[in-house]
């Protein structure tokens, strides 16, 4: 019998190893971050991690400020934790990110600080290219040419080539060892549905790593999810963990 449900977050990430490449879902906003999985990876103490995701994350103390500042707009989940928590615990040595630094001169993202301290390496990637590189890994595409980045820092060190008269940059598939994704509902096959804009990088990263782990609000019986509306087929998912209501 297929049963991908794992009883605890700690168990779900127990095999995260030193030097692993971790794709962290979410967009860096209030919804859709795999906070409990991130917290569990922090507890493993695994070192020298490469994290790939949208933003450079927030240090835990910054999360507090952010939650307070955003309270007039939207309430963050109390357990919010992103790449910044792994940075804070000294586990990150490389980031593959679209948004590593704060867009304002006030305040800094967690990864940005690490970088300024010379403690990490950054691979800066346009957001769409990042998503496409992860999708390529899922889809068995080794590399691809896109126009985005020609004539900018993005093309540095990469092959550039014209297709139909348009300059394109060669980008490689980005496969993770672990994908941490946040979904809404799952069944025991690992089929996933998301909610609204929390789908984002989560659905892209599911299947983009050797091991995909999903943090979900609800686990339902097989057959309860509408087969027309399942976004991530279970075969892309290895482990499912249920969130406690927070």
């Amino acid at each position, binding site marked *: 019998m297929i049963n991908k449900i794992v009883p605890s977050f700690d168990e779900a990430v127990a095999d995260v190893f030193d030097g692993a490449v971790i794709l962290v879902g979410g967009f860096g906003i209030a919804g859709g971050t795999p906070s409990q999985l991130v917290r569990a990876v922090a507890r493993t103490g695994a070192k020298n991690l490469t994290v790939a995701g949208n933003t450079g994350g927030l240090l835990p103390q910054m999360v507090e400020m952010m939650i307070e500042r955003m309270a007039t707009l939207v309430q963050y989940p109390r357990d919010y934790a992103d790449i910044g928590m792994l940075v804070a615990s000294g586990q990150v040595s490389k980031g593959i990110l679209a948004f590593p630094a704060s867009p304002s001169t006030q305040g800094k993202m967690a990864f940005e600080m690490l970088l300024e301290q010379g403690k990490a390496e950054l691979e800066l990637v346009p957001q*769409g290219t990042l998503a496409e590189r992860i999708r390529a890994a899922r889809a068995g595409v080794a590399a691809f040419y896109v126009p985005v980045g020609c004539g900018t820092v993005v093309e540095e060190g990469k092959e550039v080539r014209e297709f139909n008269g348009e300059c394109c940059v060669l980008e490689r598939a980005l496969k993770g060892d672990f994908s941490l994704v946040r979904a809404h509902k799952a069944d025991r096959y690992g089929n996933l549905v998301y909610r609204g804009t929390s789908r984002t990088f989560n659905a892209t990263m599911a299947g983009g790593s050797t091991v995909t782990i999903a943090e979900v609000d609800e686990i339902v019986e097989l057959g309860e999810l509408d087969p027309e509306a399942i976004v991530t087929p279970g075969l892309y998912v290895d482990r499912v963990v249920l969130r406690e209501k927070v």
Partner: protein
Amino acid sequence: MTKERLDEVTIAMRAAKEFQDGMVVNLGMGIPMLCNTLVPEGREIIFHSENGVLGFGATIENPAEADIDLLNAQGQPVYPKPGMCFVDHAESFAIVRGGHLDITVLGALQVSEKGDLANWRMPGKAVGSLGGGMDLAFRAKKVIVCMTHTSKDGQPKIVRECTLPLTAPRAVSLIITDVAVIEVTADGLALKEVAPGWTAEEVQALTEARLLVSPDLKEIDLVT
């Protein structure tokens, strides 16, 4: 003498006038995001947000109405709207990269006379964020920039050559600032509209790149 400049809402309102009925539009952070509620009456616009939503409604001001799973790319809650749908991030940028966006409205640090855009790394910062801006600037059918005409310390942002690292070369079509509307043409930058009370000379004085004053130069028009 300090002349009055347009406020952010007025800049966004002028940008939103460019949205034609049925267009698919992406709004960048800051001033552009304000366009969301400023679409001229009678035009139906599909807004795209990087984080995978199409056809969402206005920004929500009251946190009690907010849904944590319905946010724009800036993290602000928005209303659902009939006809809305969600996609994952790869598809969201398939839409961008595939040239399916009619307009993107972006902020900028510098725009050159050739339409080069620099908006990802602030002067003095060692690190910058590309976000989705590069994909958008390269691939939307029309790129509109909304920004202040000069930087906080009074430096011109419309320049001959960008000194900041580029987001995209030859990308911008239209620049809307707090003092002028400027079109990027094959011949150079055409000054089309000025803020009330401003002359072409006064706008040029704040602009490093040379402006070609349009024969039909007029005051910024928010109505038609």
